[in-house]
């Protein structure tokens, strides 16, 4: 079926409209980041023009830098935990047949299917009851709940496509389970681990709903800092800069994912 000329024109117009909608806020934000004055009045730059002033302020802001480091640490921890647990579960589900196999996938999906507020409150109440100190460790635990399914989904999808014959050949040639895992399976799932890891890292890095409950008073991630700083008018120009930086940084995982296995691999999210 070929669409008529008018249909094509209409589709093209709708596509342009949707893209404009998607990118409008991002462009507005980018312009504000270069605004020299504190004023948030549109159009920016009308008071004292544009400058890089707030970029310097952001880099020398200790709270921002600390929050950035905490975010990186939390995302790294949650991603590693998720990769290990997700891969174990994926190997179990994809390479074994057992009663309740469907239930495993269902259980792992729950943390992203149900509202994040619930995860947050439930974990916070449990930590409090157990007397656990809130901090980086509790943030990592909170993030890993929903990151496991990301790693699991990526690895399980890859394992289903990998032929089992190579693993059987490896065993027939005398390799034990561990050798087969390291030399045959691991190279096969490496890119799945990479794209799953990237996605888990990105999700953890900008998570705010669960983190709000599991961080405790003394620890701050970048999203938590943004959340509190927008309520202080003095800090708003720095928020603009940090927000723009986060948007620019989000190009990195997309670029890597694109390089690794084509645009389709990034679709999983």
């Amino acid at each position: 079926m070929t669409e008529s000329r008018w249909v094509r024109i209409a589709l093209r117009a709708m596509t342009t409209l949707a893209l404009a909608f998607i990118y409008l806020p991002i462009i507005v934000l980018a312009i504000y980041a270069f605004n020299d004055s504190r004023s948030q009045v549109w159009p920016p730059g009308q008071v004292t023009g544009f400058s890089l002033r707030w970029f310097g302020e952001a880099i020398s802001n200790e709270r921002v830098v600390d929050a950035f480091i905490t975010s990186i640490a939390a995302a790294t921890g949650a991603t590693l935990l998720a990769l290990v647990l997700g891969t174990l579960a994926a190997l179990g589900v994809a390479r074994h047949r057992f009663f309740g196999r469907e239930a495993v996938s269902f259980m792992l999906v729950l943390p992203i299917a149900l509202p994040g507020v619930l995860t947050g409150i439930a974990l916070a109440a449990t930590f409090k009851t157990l007397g656990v100190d809130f901090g980086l460790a509790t943030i990592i635990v909170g993030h890993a709940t929903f990151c496991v399914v990301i790693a699991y989904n990526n690895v399980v999808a890859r394992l289903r496509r990998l032929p089992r014959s190579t693993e059987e050949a490896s065993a027939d040639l005398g390799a034990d389970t561990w050798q087969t895992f390291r030399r045959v399976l691991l190279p096969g799932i490496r890119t799945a681990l990479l794209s799953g890891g990237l996605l888990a890292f990105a999700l953890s890095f900008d998570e705010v709903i669960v983190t709000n409950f599991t961080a405790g008073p003394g620890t701050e991630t970048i999203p938590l800092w943004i959340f509190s700083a927008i309520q202080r008018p003095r800090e708003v120009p720095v928020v603009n800069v940090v927000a723009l930086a986060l948007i620019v940084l989000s190009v990195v995982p997309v670029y890597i994912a694109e390089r690794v296995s084509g645009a389709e691999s990034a679709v999983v999210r």
Partner: protein
Amino acid sequence: MTSSGIGGSQASASRRLAAWLHPRRRLQLGLLLTSPLLWIGLAYLGSLAILLLNAFWRTDPFSGKIIPEFSLDAFAKLASSEVYRTIVLRTLGMAVAVTLTDVLLGFPIAYYMARVASRRTRRILLIAVLLPLWASYLVKIYAWRVILQGHGLLDSVLAPFGIAGPGLNEILNSWVVLSYLWLPYMIVPIFTGLERIPESLLEASSDLGGKAGPTFRRVVLPLALPAVAAGSIFTFSLTLGDYITPTMVSGTKFIGNVIYDNSSLGSLPLAAAYSFVPIVIMVVYLFIARRLGAFESL
């Protein structure tokens, strides 16, 4: 096998263990699944179960302490309150409105990407749609705050027409921002679904005399429905649970806000009882979506 002998006795011990494990498939499975299941079972499901259990505990009216005795007080309080019912209806209405908006906005672009655009354009469009998915959720809400706030972009666009902007206290703001946030989650499944429709089906339809309109309605649309349902799972459930967007752009309360506001230890039974609302709605929704074939399109 020489290269693996470097580790000495330790390596050979692990190899002996691996060799012993090799024929024991059940034990292997047990070892693989123990830690992930313990993790999700204890850290997530355990906490969630304890939280939900709170809904059936009694709150002492004088001390405000929670007493672990069975009661349906929290549910009774919710059922008798007009406010809580309004908030459920408001949140549900918003979830439906956002889902419909995203279908209307997302379908044409997904269709253009899947069936009209050249390979190169398709690839560029796909990246353009995916890129905002990776950008911080909070930053995107914040960007809308900047646009919507007094003297912001929207105000200055509307000023020549003598209309005042909505400010940050308007429920329609939540509708726009939530539709914005979840739009890519709708585009991607629809695109994948439309791309999967074999060309031969469309050719068959036109060979049998079907014009573009009827072919679209009777071939493309039914085949795309599972994908739309899959996308709607995201737009619906994410709207249902959000409490940050309404707080930041419209100052209205959604289900998530009520749960959040009652999350301090004293009022936990109320928060827990209210949590059943989104859980029940999502279970029903997932059931309907499954009937429409959404799970094969996820």
